[in-house]
């Protein structure tokens, strides 16, 4: 693995290996001294063209716990129309000797462009690009699902296991969601069945080629599909007033059709868990009852995010060693 640009770049074995490595990383995080010397002397640059404190802090924490030097480079405010700045910034980072560039960008494909342009020789990690991909989010979701739903609900060792046989419903603004795209691909790779649920206006034309099912009716999916997990996507209120009169008539109507409230939570199978990539719009796609219930693993997703990102940085920057270490175990 040279870069991590898309969830579709990962084979089943590679994805499972990342999850297993994340498990080892998580184990070290329970210790009093959390810092590992693994990436001492290596430089990780967080290159954020789009504001996301949560994701930046998650990557920053992951890199620091591996003892890497971290440079935060916020290029916020540089609009897409000034595309040259990606190139110039990348060349600057190259001059600074970045070993890995974690990039968040509002333009779909920007990490791809960065990785294939020759502007930087470092490993490129996509931390979310436009409406395209957010592979580490999908990995942390898969990690969370595996922890809770595989191997006797986390009581047995889950390393080496995938998500075979699980059914995951992904609900909300699929059209604009890089989280949905990444999850559909990764969950499919890991053997899970995925159902996307959204109003038809928020499902992309061309979705028929995706390895998943699509439904416009959340209640039917909950009752008939009995999902093991339900992942609620953030819905932006602005979508209501965008081009063409909006994607749905009102927030209230959206919540009624697609929000996760106490009633729907109750209708889910008893073991089912609730995920959300955050930040949540309480009262829109998820009610306070659902968000705060003991079925919700939303806070845990944040902690798992650090472990998964540690694993990704570790495998990209110290990649070969990891395989050796594993076989020696």
């Amino acid at each position, binding site marked *: 693995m040279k870069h991590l640009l898309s969830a579709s770049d990962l084979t089943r074995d590679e994805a499972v290996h990342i999850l297993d490595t994340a498990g080892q990383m998580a184990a070290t995080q329970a210790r009093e001294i959390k810092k590992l010397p693994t990436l001492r002397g290596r430089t990780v640059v967080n290159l954020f063209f789009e504001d996301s404190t949560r994701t930046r802090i998650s990557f920053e924490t992951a890199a620091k716990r591996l003892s890497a030097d971290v440079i935060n480079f916020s290029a916020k405010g540089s609009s*897409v*129309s*000034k*595309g*040259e700045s*990606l*190139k110039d910034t990348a060349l600057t980072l190259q001059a600074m000797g970045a070993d890995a560039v974690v990039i968040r*960008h*509002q*333009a*779909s*494909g*920007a990490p*791809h*462009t960065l990785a*294939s*342009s020759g502007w930087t020789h470092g490993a490129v990690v996509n931390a979310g*690009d*436009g*409406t*395209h*991909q957010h592979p580490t989010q999908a990995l942390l979701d898969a990690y969370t699902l595996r922890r809770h739903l595989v191997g006797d609900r986390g009581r047995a060792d889950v390393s080496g296991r995938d998500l075979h046989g699980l059914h995951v419903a992904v609900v909300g603004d699929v059209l604009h969601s*890089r989280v949905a*795209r990444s999850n559909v691909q990764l969950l499919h790779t890991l053997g899970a069945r995925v159902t996307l649920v959204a109003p038809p206006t928020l499902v*992309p*034309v*061309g*979705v*028929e*080629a*995706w390895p998943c099912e699509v439904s416009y009716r959340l209640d039917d999916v909950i009752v008939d599909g009995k999902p093991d997990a339900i992942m609620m996507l953030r819905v932006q209120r602005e979508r209501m007033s965008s*081009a*063409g009169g909006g994607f749905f008539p009102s927030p209230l109507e959206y919540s009624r059709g697609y929000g996760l409230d106490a009633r729907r939570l109750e209708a889910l199978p008893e073991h089912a868990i609730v995920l959300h990539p955050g930040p949540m719009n309480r009262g829109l796609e998820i009610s306070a009852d659902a968000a705060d219930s003991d079925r919700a693993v939303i806070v845990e997703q944040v902690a798992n995010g650090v472990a998964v990102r540690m694993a990704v940085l570790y495998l990209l920057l110290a990649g070969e060693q990891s395989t050796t270490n594993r076989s020696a175990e």
Partner: protein
Amino acid sequence: MTTYLLRDVSPLGEARTDLLLADGVVAAIGTGLEAPADAVEIDGAGLVALPGLVDLHTHLREPGREDAETIATGTRAAALGGFTAVHAMANTTPTQDTAGVVEQVWHLGRRAGWVDVFPVGAVTVGLEGERLAELGAMAESAARVRVFSDDGKCVHDPVVMRRALEYVKAFDGVVAQHAQEPRLTEGSQMHEGVVSAELGLAGWPAVAEEAIVARDVLLAEHVGSRLHVCHLSTAGSVEIVRWAKSRGIDVTAEVTPHHLILTDELARGYDPLFKVNPPLRTQRDVEAVREGLADGTIDIVATDHAPHPREDKDCEWAAAAFGMTGLETALSVVQETMVETGRMTWADVARVLSSAPARIGRVDGQHGRPIAVGEPANLTLVDPAARRVVRPQGQATKSENSPFGGRELPGRVVATFLRGRATVLDGAPVDEEVQR
């Protein structure tokens, strides 16, 4: 003026003969012609002679974006591509929306001397789609404009479109529409379909083109006007034009070389070289436009040559400019997609790249003529057996945004003659003769 004797060429790919070019015209045709004393003989064995190619859709960028292309560099590229005439699109800065600007472009074309430059006039002032530009003044200017287009933008207001269609009838003009419903394509980046869904790039749906084509053919029928559809790109548009022609509506249509050969799959690498408007479509659409071109539904191939400086393509997809160069590869693409597939003969190529565009642009007194004695010696010699790898850096166009870099294409333009004067010989531009 040099006299040229072209030995053993195949006019339109048919029986070999000699062609004598003297005093700007085809002076004689026949086998074993005797060479006049001062004639330059060219061995044309294996070469196909075509009437000089005519492009109805070229962006020469001057005035305004001389960093991308100038009239001199763009027309030199055109000559190398086998063209003897190009129609220069109106989206310059200032816009070609007055007699003054179109005359300036026309004069610059004459001064460059590589091909005849026929300026296209804007339909509306500043391409804003609101008020008709001075269509009559442009028609009566020295540039004698006959083709009007807001290309780059769609004349989307149906009333403005209707008025334009009606108004240009007075001077036998034609409105060339860039068919793109603006509301359906806000922020659009590529063809809307399976690939855009996966790449997360905002879609440019086929219906946004087809809705305008359908509306415009009905408007043209209603007011009895002539309509030309630019760069038709979808299977649905082919169907609509086919239907319109069957009804007797006076519509013509063009397809670009890139829409004959490339698909939206190429967007997968996020390389903006493949970002173009209208976008590359699916393989099904490629099949449909080839079929439409072969059966005459689509009248012509036009390049939509759209040069851009490197910085406008050396960036992330969404920030990049739309467009690709095409003058120096158009004929090769037509050979590969239409001739080598057995769908068209060289006579058909002469029709879609010369006589039909000349007729649509109303320059058919000089261009797109038959290869016959007494006709103006606007000719192109092609070596169909040659193969070459496209090197964008080595092209004559000032810009390097060819989508065919590194690709091998068949055919090579060996020589181009503009009214008997060689602009290209041995595949190289004849700078000194042009500079005369």
